[in-house]
Structures are given as structure tokens and as C-alpha cells.
């Protein structure tokens, strides 16, 4: 194999682009498979595939999707964040308190996002300055943020006045031409922007470099510490936005909401092709991963399956999805 122009190399290049496509399309197939299975086993396939149900699924996806955008950036950089569930609760409570204090809705929304970003920044500082591994730093934050949410809300739900924020998550929005919940549009815009940033900006390429080989990234003059602060802060910002969506859906700030949601978010990223060892992942994949999770949940509900069956099914599918991905990768390696 020492010759430079052997056909093996040409086919290697072909394999590599083929592999890229497969990696990109894999989650699509997964999504179609999930939808297909529920359509087949459902007594009422029309209901599962009805535009009304699709709108509900999309509205339900918003929180996981926004979280998965932030988580994709973090996971591509080789990190992990276990705090999103708590941050969603904290940001929701903060936003609700701001609304109750008669802040303009837009400022209240920004307050929720800012709290999320601040939490992310603290995570980043713990990781870079205190040199705590991300898993532990954010595990600590999982408890701290949850505790803060309960503290500032006096362990009670915070009711909010009626503003446009309450209508962000409505599956059947009032100006009919919106078609889907305003939150879905927001998530879509954020996703497109984040995908462009990851693919096309210097920041995005540095995130990939960091996750691919941190030593090399640092040796090339990238301020890996500063980069991590940005990554976790941006992640937190998006978890904060997800928290506002959560509050909008419940129409109250609830400090006990979204327990365990971080695992759904991580699952969405991993199903979408993200690698927990860093360097791999895409926003598009993560969005499809989030949709897979939402369709699974919705399908299980429409089937009238008890909650525990849903949990077992979703858990199993996460492992199978990643196993299929690994199988595909090793198959290509030979």
C-alpha cells in the first residue's frame, strides 16, 4: 500500500464520503422507523400522523431541542453538562418571578436566559480554573441550580400574569399562518444559526478541534480555557431559553420541573451522531434525535401504554441507536 495512487485510496475517499452520508442519514432512518412502527401498530394510524398530532409533537420537542443545541456544542467540544434539567427549572422560576414583578415580558425572557448563561459560565470556571472534570463540575451544578430554584421560589410554584410568553408553546397558535407553536419557530431559527456557527465560524471549528484533540488545539495557540468558558456559557444560555419555554408551557415557574431532562437531551445528541469522546456531532442530527425522542413519547402515550413501559422502551432505544451507530462505524473500519 505504499504507492501513492492505488485504487484503494480512491475507494477510501469514496467510502469516507459515503460514510459521512450514512452518518448524516442514519438518524433520519431512525426517525422514519419510529414513525413507521407506531403507524403500523397503532389502531388509529390517522390520528398518530394527523397534522394536529404532529403539531403537538413539535411543540413538545421544543424544550429538548433547544437543550440539545447547547448540549451538541458542549459534547462536540469533548465535554458534558449534567445540569440542564436544574437550569431549566431555575431559569423558569427566575423568568416567572420577573414577570410577577411586572418586568416587560421580553426582559423577563432575557433574565431567564442570562441566569442560564451565568450558571454555564460558573460551570466553565469550575472546569478551567478549578480543573474539575466536566462530569463532576456539572453534577455539582445539578444540585446547586435545583436548590437555588427552590430557594428563590420558596419551594412553591410561581404563578405568572398572562403575557405573550404564555403562548410560545401553544401547539395551535392564534395567527393561523404560524402553523406551529412560536417556540418551534424559535428553536428552528436557533438551530439553523447554531449549525452555521459550528460549521462555518472560527469559533465552531475551534470547538471541533478542542473535542478532537485538546493537546493539539492548545499547541496551536487556541485559548482552550477561554473557549470552554464560551462553550458552557452558550450552552447555559440555551438551557435558560429552554427553561423559559418550559415555564411558558406550564404557565408557571415550577422549581421541581424537568428532573432528569438532561438525560433526554444527552440522548438526543447521541442518537443524532454525537460522540461522547468529542469531535463528532451535528445540530441537524441532534434535532432529529430530539424528534425521535418526542415521537417515541407521543406514540407510547397514544398507544395508552403505562408510563413504565414508555420509560423502558425509550431507554432500550437509546442504547440500540448508539449500538447501531458503533456497529456501522466498525463495519466501515475494516
Amino acid at each position, binding site marked *: *500500500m*505504499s*504507492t*501513492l*495512487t*492505488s485504487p*484503494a*485510496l480512491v475507494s*477510501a*475517499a469514496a467510502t*469516507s464520503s459515503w460514510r459521512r452520508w450514512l452518518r448524516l442519514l442514519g438518524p433520519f432512518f431512525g426517525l422514519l422507523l419510529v414513525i413507521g412502527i407506531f403507524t403500523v401498530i397503532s389502531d388509529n394510524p390517522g390520528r398518530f400522523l394527523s397534522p394536529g398530532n404532529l403539531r403537538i409533537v413539535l411543540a413538545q420537542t421544543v424544550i429538548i431541542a433547544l437543550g440539545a443545541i447547547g448540549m451538541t456544542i458542549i459534547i462536540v467540544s469533548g465535554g458534558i453538562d449534567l445540569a440542564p434539567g436544574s437550569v431549566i427549572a431555575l431559569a423558569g422560576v427566575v423568568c416567572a418571578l420577573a414577570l410577577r414583578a411586572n418586568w416587560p415580558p421580553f426582559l423577563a425572557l432575557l433574565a431567564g436566559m442570562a441566569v442560564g448563561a451565568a450558571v454555564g459560565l460558573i460551570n466553565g470556571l469550575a472546569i478551567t480554573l478549578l480543573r474539575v472534570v466536566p462530569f463532576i463540575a456539572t453534577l455539582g451544578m445539578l444540585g446547586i441550580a435545583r436548590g437555588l430554584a427552590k430557594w428563590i421560589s420558596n419551594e412553591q410554584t410561581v404563578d405568572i400574569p398572562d403575557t405573550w410568553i404564555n403562548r410560545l408553546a401553544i401547539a395551535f397558535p392564534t395567527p393561523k399562518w404560524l402553523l406551529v407553536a412560536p417556540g418551534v419557530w424559535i428553536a428552528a431559527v436557533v438551530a439553523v444559526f447554531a449549525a452555521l456557527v459550528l460549521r*462555518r*465560524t*472560527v*469559533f*465552531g*471549528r*475551534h470547538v*471541533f*478541534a478542542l*473535542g*478532537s*484533540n485538546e*493537546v*493539539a*488545539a*492548545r*499547541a*496551536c*495557540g*487556541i*485559548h482552550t480555557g477561554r473557549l470552554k468558558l464560551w462553550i458552557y456559557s452558550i450552552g447555559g444560555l440555551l438551557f435558560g431559553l429552554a427553561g423559559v419555554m418550559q415555564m411558558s408551557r406550564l404557565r408557571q415557574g415550577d422549581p421541581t420541573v424537568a428532573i432528569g431532562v438532561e438525560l433526554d437531551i444527552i440522548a438526543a445528541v447521541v442518537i443524532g451522531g454525537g460522540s461522547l469522546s468529542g*469531535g*463528532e456531532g451535528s445540530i441537524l442530527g441532534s434535532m432529529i434525535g430530539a424528534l425521535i425522542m418526542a415521537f417515541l413519547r407521543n406514540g407510547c402515550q397514544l398507544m395508552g401504554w403505562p408510563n413504565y413501559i414508555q420509560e423502558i422502551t425509550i431507554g432500550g432505544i437509546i442504547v440500540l441507536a448508539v449500538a447501531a451507530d458503533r456497529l456501522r462505524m466498525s463495519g466501515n473500519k*475494516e
Partner: protein
Amino acid sequence: MSSSAAQALEPPLLEVIGVAKHFGATRALDGVDLEVRPGHVHAIIGENGAGKSTLLNILSGAVRPDRGSIRLKGLPYHLSDPLEALRRGIAYIHQEISLCPHLSVAENILLGAEPRRGLWVDHQKMNEVAAEILEPFHHANIVPDRSVSDLRLPERQIVEICRALARRPSLILMDEPTSSLQRADVEKLFSSIRHLRDSGIGIIYISHFLEEIREVADEFAVLRDGKKVLNGRLQDVSDAALIAAMVGRPLQDFFPPRARVSSNETVLRVESLSSGTALRNASFNLRKGEVLGISGLIGSGQTELLRAVFGLNPANGGTVEVFGKRLAPGGGPKTRITAGIGWLSEDRSGEGLALALSVADNISLTNFRAVSRGGWIDLEKQKKQAKQCTDAVRVKASSMTVPVQSLSGGNQQRVALARLLHQGCRIFLLDEPTRGVDVGSKKHIYELIASLVRSGNSVLIVSSYLPELFGVCDRLAVMSRGYLSPTRPIEEWTPEMVLQAAIGTDSQGTSSCTTLGSHREHSN
């Protein structure tokens, strides 16, 4: 060089004065002086553990010296991190490749210095700039927008070198940049080094190949045990004097006398072994008390042959018979170890050793049974046995409990060999046992091989270094594109025949191979 008198007056680019560094009880550097002038290639020569890497690490800011001072372009130079070194114009090309496999070639070359248009990466410009830097290497496979994970090792090395060049440094540190390159690539590298030198850049060049150093360097310094023992201009010194300075004594018989134990007993019989596309239908016999060598161009399937015999790569055809017993086709390394086969990986840090574990743990890794009872390890016994095995191959380590990664490259390799002794195997599969190893360690490894076969063991050795195969082997076979030639006694081979066999009879695509074929002759 008419301006050499003027150049001598020119202030040095880099001045190192009395730099010293301790690691625990080891004196890695003991007051070293060095002067590098712009437009010169300065070679640093020395055995593994002589302090070359420590010196480079100090210059690149990764390690802080205990005492001594460094001046760069006449200014004091205190470094605490690699970023500062980059900013001051020092680029370090590591021996081990450190790229981001998920990024493209161009993204790796311009990592941290991406051309941008506002916030966005200017991909077109990036590919253009990368192509320009890659141009002197004329490598068809290294396309700017190709993913680095698709490249082979030597190609990655070139990307790594181009990444350093992209910074337009004033001083380049090169730590054995050719260790994974083939001859054609080495020549391309050298022509670009000369090009860099002529443009006024200073280069510090570390290599084990004296011939290479003569080809590319102007000045040299020999380090031994952390001290500079000889320096000057290369044209004024003989190879013998360099080697004598490196090892501290004249090196006479480099290869130990062949101790042919005449025996016709076959200990390992491999019949039509195939594995993937890399290995097709290999057959050979290994006899008791002999050294069988496998030669070939890098990547012709030699490594895959050893891995398939050892059960690490799946075989899709053929049989392996050890001491007359046929091994089950699906059996992994466990069955091979039980049968008495030991394997030395070509990739010492990647799969040969558990770098973070202690010397003792690494030694007993394949044979914990010898040092444990009922699952509990007898730590004293483990240390004692490790000491015996490491002493047999002369490992320099302050204790058996230090992590292997604290040892120098040559000592790590000896630990890997000592493990095979502890394992108690009778058949040794050695893949590039002297790769990245200094002259003195090489000699020890050759002596070890000779003593192994004298006591009735058998050695199968894969090497891309032809003189060593001619020095130690009793019989030789050559691999070419996955096919193994018939085995013949070493006296029936000449280097030319080996190269012919390695290049293969098919005449297509060999134009690059004929230059690749000129294996680096050892200067001894």
C-alpha cells in the same frame, strides 16, 4: 558560504547557557550550553535518555528549567506555556503526531490562525493557503479539504510539519520528524528544510540517523547523560567520533556474533494465512533457535502478519501451528500466550505499554498468575520478578513502582521486551523492536535477541531497517503488498534482492517506490 565570516558575527538566534533540569533523582540536563544561528540547521545527537527531549521541552515552554538562562534574538526568554513559545516564533514538531483527526487537512494546518471573513471562516482562502504550504511536498493524497482521519501515518506527519510552517516561525524544533516517513517523503522534507534554512530560519533537528543528519544539518551537539560532550561542524567530524561521543566508548561489533543453533525442529508453522486485504496466503516455518526476519516497505502487511499470527487481527483463511499443535482459528491473543507466543507491538505508546501503570504492573501484565495467588497480587513477589526481568534487559528506572511514562523511549522499549521474558514465551514476535531507539539500546536489543535464540527460543522479527535484519537474522523473507516471499537463508540474500522483492515484480506505480526503496543505510 562566502558570507560565513559575516554569519559568524551575526548574533545567535538562540543562546542556551548552563540549562539544567532534574526529574526526581534523575538528572535530565546538567548544564547545557547551545548556540543556534539563523539560517543554520543544528543537529542534537544522543542516545535515548541523553536529555534531547528535555531540552526541546524546555525550549518549547512545556518544561521549566531548574537553572540556566535562554536568550532568543538577544532577549531573555522565560517560558511558562507553549502559547508563549508560539508567539515568540518557536515551532515544535513533535515525534508523536498530534493532529485533530476530525478536522480537514487545511483546518489542521491553519488551526488557531484561520483566515476569516468577519466571523466566518474563509474556507476557500484556507484551502488555498494550505495548498500553498503543502505544495513543496507534492503529495497527491494530502488534499486540503480531506479529513485527517483518512490519511496514513506518514501523510499525517507531513500535515503536522506544514502546520508548524504555517506559523512562519524563526526557530523550528524537530524531534525525529522522519521516524514514520519513507525515503521519498524524507527527501521532500529535507528539501523544504533547506529552503527554510536558506530563508534565514534556525532549525534544531533531532534524529537517530547519522546519515540523515549529515545530509541536512550544518552543526551538531552531542548530549550524553544530560551533558554536552561534543559539538562543532559536521564536516569536521567522523561518524566513528560521533558514535563514540554518544555511547561514551567506541562501538565495535555492532551485531553480536550469530549463534546458529542447528535444529530442524519447527516450532511455528504458518500455512496460507490471510487476513483482510493486507495479508494474503502467507506461509512460513519458524525453527527452534533461529531468528527469522521479515522485510518489506512500510505498510506491506508485515505488521498484519504478526497480528494475525498472534490472533489480534481476524484470519480469514489459513492455519497456525505451534509446537505441532494447531491453534483454533478464532482464538485471540489469550490462546497464543498460553501456547508460548509473545508479541511486541510496533506502537509502544499506543498498545505496547500501559503508560500510566508502574513498571512492575507492565511486566506482569501478561502473566499475573506468576505473581498472584487466588486473585491477590503478591506485591513483593511482583516487584522482585519485575526487577529480575528489567535487569536482564538493563532498564534504567529508579524503582519498579514508577509509571512507565516517566522513562525514556529506549527504556520503555526495554520494559516491553522485559514483559516477554516474564511471560516466559518460547516464540518471540517482534514488530520493529528498535524503532525510535538509540544506538546503545539497539545494541542491547540485538544482544538480547542473540541470547534468546542461544537458549533455544525462536524469534520472528519485522523491521524496515535492512542492515539490522542482515545483522541478526538466520533466514529472511520479504513481504510485498500482502504477499510473503519464500524464506531463504540470509547468505542467499543481498540488499538489492530484498529491495527488488519488496518493490514487487509488477512495474506499475513503482516509480515512487524505487526511491522509497533506498533504505536508510546506517552510518556504521
